């Protein structure tokens, strides 16, 4: 069931072809530069300011271009592509409304350190600043949510700028880079010579850590009685999962993985404690509060993880390993700060560390907590429970699928009940919590891995934020399995209303949602619906067996809450555990 998308030629051949200096237009320079950066897929939407670029794209087959139905779909797809593949995602939009439609997606990628190169057209240079038709100061608008940005004033700069953009996006702490190209620059011709070096004086990400700090950590592990690890997205982004596994195996330190860190350590391992934080496990949250050594690896002490900051890990000596020096001491001030690339750090540490020998009693306590307080929910024989649906998906895919989610209760249930074993198999908007992300990001992930099973789990609310992209699944036969957990409400917001706003359900009842099965079919995507376990099993099986995209709607009750839950403003060991 691979996607029916035109094949591209090998980069080697292209290199030879494209490396020849030649007089060409800015638009052609852009396309060649993208090819030379190894780009194989671009998501985009045309318009006046990018007409020269789209003209150059006419008949161009050296990478795939996917025409989405909304710029937001394009950028979330590029983001999903990047998170799944580890390569920078690329999208193109026109000036003004095209560019501003990208803003949410850029912010989403920025918060989660996802490498993107975002190309926008702009009005003619001579019109910039005049409120010209479809003009927006997109570099100005996106300054706080990009790692860096360029407004290209001269076609001569274009090869260098594109090369720098990829370099910046994909090194150090990764992130989105915006390149804004005025229409006259994409039209202008010049002699193109590929750029292969970067010279950025102000940009030298430090990857190799300070050895003295590593020694301190090695000694701290040897004497710790209650050590734990919090591992985050940084482990995945730096490709450190194998080094991480070795580190945990050698030290036998219990590990919790944040929402973005899920998959960086196999969930079946005894030492894994689940996810920490607001909807974290009893075990992870209590372990954080009681540990005497907390080793944070590539996570940023987000407030959804720490809960109330003063009172967080009160007994712990804190170690923070991060590529971004600005993360160290931003929220929690560490006793042992380690600036460096997580993979480099762990590879340097692994030969030096041994088993944390004083922590046997602690390991027993944690095993006991895991046993006494597992994640749980009240199942039903008459209704479909959302947690059960996730468990069913997990069982049938054996943790092998790439799972993307939208934002809400279904996202937390997926994080809790899907068992991740591999990095880059879990794609979710963590930092920004962007509804509308789940479905288009799955399209991007599927483009990166046409042969893998990609499952996109969405709420009935968020599915309606980018449902128009069903069209591109149908047209390109992108075989994403789209799950809609339909609880008829904006579940996560309703949960807060239930628990904190005295059941005043203000505007969280969606009422009038479309018939999701018909919606899918209207776009040419197969649609299925399930309202009980038997139907769910059958529909899901059919979805898996059907080549091409399928949407499956699971109708679930609206009153289910996500537990455990830490309410805002409390320390994370103050958990509401639910009814049972």
């Amino acid at each position, binding site marked *: 069931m691979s996607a029916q998308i035109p094949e591209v030629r090998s980069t080697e051949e292209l290199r030879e072809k494209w490396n020849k200096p030649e007089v060409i237009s800015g638009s052609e320079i852009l396309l060649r530069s993208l090819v030379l950066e190894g780009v194989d897929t671009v998501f985009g939407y045309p318009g006046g300011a990018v007409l020269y670029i789209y003209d150059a794209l006419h008949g161009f087959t050296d990478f795939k271009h996917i025409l989405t139905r909304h710029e937001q779909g394009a950028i979330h797809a590029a983001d999903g592509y990047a998170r799944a593949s580890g390569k920078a995602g690329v999208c193109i939009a026109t000036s003004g409304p095209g560019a501003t439609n990208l803003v949410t997606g850029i912010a989403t990628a920025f918060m989660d350190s996802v490498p993107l190169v975002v190309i926008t057209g702009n009005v003619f240079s001579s019109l910039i600043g005049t409120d010209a038709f479809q003009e927006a100061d997109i570099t100005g608008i996106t300054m706080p949510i990009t790692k860096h940005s360029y407004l290209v004033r001269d076609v001569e700069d274009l090869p260098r700028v594109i090369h720098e953009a990829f370099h*910046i996006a994909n090194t150090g702490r990764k992130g989105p880079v915006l390149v804004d190209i005025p229409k006259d620059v994409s039209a202008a011709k010049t002699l193109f010579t590929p750029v292969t070096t970067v010279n*950025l004086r102000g940009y030298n990400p430090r990857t190799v850590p300070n050895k003295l700090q590593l020694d301190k950590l090695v000694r701290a592990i040897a004497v710790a009685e209650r050590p734990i690890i919090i591992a985050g997205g940084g482990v995945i982004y730096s490709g450190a999962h194998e080094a991480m596994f070795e580190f945990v195996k050698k030290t036998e330190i219990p590990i919790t993985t944040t929402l973005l860190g899920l998959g960086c350590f196999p969930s079946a391992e005894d030492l894994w404690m689940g996810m920490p934080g607001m909807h974290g496990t009893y075990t992870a949250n209590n372990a954080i509060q009681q540990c005497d050594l907390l080793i944070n690896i590539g996570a940023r002490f987000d407030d959804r993880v720490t809960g109330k900051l003063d009172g967080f890990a009160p007994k712990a000596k804190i170690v923070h390993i991060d590529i971004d020096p600005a993360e160290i001491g931003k929220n929690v001030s560490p006793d042992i700060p380690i600036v460096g690339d997580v993979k480099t750090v762990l590879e340097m540490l692994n030969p030096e560390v041994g088993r944390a020998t004083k922590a046997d009693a602690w390991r027993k306590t944690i095993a006991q907590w895991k046993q006494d307080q597992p994640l749980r929910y009240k199942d039903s024989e008459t209704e479909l429970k959302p947690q059960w649906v996730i468990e069913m998906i997990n069982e049938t895919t054996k943790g092998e699928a790439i799972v993307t989610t939208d934002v809400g209760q279904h996202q937390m249930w997926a994080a809790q009940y899907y068992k991740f074993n591999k990095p880059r198999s879990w794609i979710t908007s963590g930092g920004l919590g962007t509804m509308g992300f789940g479905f288009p990001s799955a399209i991007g992930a599927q483009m990166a891995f046409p042969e893998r099973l990609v499952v996109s789990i969405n709420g009935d609310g968020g599915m309606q934020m980018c449902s128009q992209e069903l069209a591109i699944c149908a047209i390109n036969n992108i075989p994403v399995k789209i799950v809609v957990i339909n609880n008829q409400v904006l579940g996560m917001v309703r949960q807060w209303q239930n628990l904190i706003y005295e059941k005043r359900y203000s505007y969280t009842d969606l009422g009038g949602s479309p018939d999701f099965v018909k919606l899918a079919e209207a776009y040419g995507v197969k649609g299925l619906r399930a309202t009980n376990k038997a139907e769910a099993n059958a529909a899901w099986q059919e979805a898996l067996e059907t080549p091409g995209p399928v949407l499956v709607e699971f109708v679930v009750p609206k009153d289910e809450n996500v537990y455990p839950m830490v309410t805002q403003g409390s320390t994370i060991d103050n958990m509401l555990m639910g009814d049972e």
Partner: protein
Amino acid sequence: MKHTIAVLVNDQPGVLQRVSGLFGRRGFNIESITVGQSEEVGLSRMVIVTLGDQSTLEQIEKQLYKLIDVIKVVDLGSRPMVARELALIKVKSEPAERPEIMGVIETFRASVVDIGSTSLLVQAVGDTQKIDAMIELLKPYGIKELSRTGVTAMIRGNG
């Protein structure tokens, strides 16, 4: 606590916006900011006076370094430095008051750069406290217009 930091940046369009925008969105305070050419072609030096505790200052430095166009950040406060600003003050003065006002101006080693029929334009250079003090003394005569540049600064000696 007040801190004075010097930031060496690429002389790129938008770089002032990047730096000031960073202060704004991270909730750092800017008391004054000055920008101008530096000793090297293509680089500008900004001098920023900001308020905050030591850990805020540390965050400011680290966040500034994340900007691709920032080459170097120096905390001037941690070393002996010379910090100066320029103020232009248009003060009301009937001819009869002039000698008295001139007395104030001379004490502060400021100078008169223009004389109108009922006003004097005073130019003062010095550290912030000196200029504050002078303004205080000129206030009773009536300040019609005041413009200060904000601080620019440099480390003393050969360093």
